[in-house]
């Protein structure tokens, strides 16, 4: 049972992370992952890039707290959460969440829970570069509403 949290400008490789989650781990049949990337369209606007600001002293703490909350709700084993910061381009990786468990239901639920709380609690802010200029993204009420259902 271990948690890896990384917040940095460095890219990640989802396949490598899955391999690490599975290494020396014959107890867990299930690995669920989420990979989030910079996409072209956001609310109808053409996105060309993204700047990710964060609160360095707090981000890793916040992510670890979210993982601990997931561990209190489900039986999960290894967890990795990676979040990039700084300047990102279209198609670049932003975030990776991976969870292993003996049972798929717990792995799915925990991975989605971690993403949902990351969206409303972890101190990251996105500034989009759009064809019509730079804009800070507004938080979505739907993200608040979704997290509350857990």
């Amino acid at each position: 049972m271990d948690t890896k949290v990384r917040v940095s400008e460095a890219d990640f490789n989802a396949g490598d992370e899955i391999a690490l989650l599975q290494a020396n781990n014959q107890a867990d049949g299930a690995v669920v992952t989420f990979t989030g990337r910079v996409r072209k369209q956001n609310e109808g606007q053409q996105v060309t890039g993204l700047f990710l600001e964060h609160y360095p002293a707090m981000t890793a703490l916040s992510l670890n707290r979210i993982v601990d909350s997931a561990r209190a709700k489900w039986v999960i084993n290894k967890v990795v959460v990676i979040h990039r910061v700084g300047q990102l381009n279209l198609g670049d990786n932003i975030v990776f969440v991976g969870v292993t468990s003996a049972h798929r239901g717990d792995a799915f639920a925990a991975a989605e829970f971690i993403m949902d709380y990351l969206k409303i609690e972890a101190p990251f802010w996105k500034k989009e570069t759009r064809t019509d200029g730079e804009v800070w993204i507004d938080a979505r009420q739907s993200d608040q509403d979704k997290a509350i259902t857990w």
Partner: protein
Amino acid sequence: MLTILFFARLREQLGQTSVQLTITENTTVEQVLTQLIEEHPSWQSPLSSNNILAALNQQMVSKDTVVSAGDELAFFPPVTGG
């Protein structure tokens, strides 16, 4: 002395990354906001938003939380990571 940090849109609106503030005992996060607006009248509008979140020593807190000298208090807009 209280260290106050600002992030993202709020940081840009205030034109400040951080400020130091002298506080009296039993000051709440809400009162810190009032004190900041008194010292910087132009900050009234950005700091009055209902959306401003606060983290005290890297933990999200409500605005009635009491702060102490030496604390790190951060104000920021709703988060948009992930």
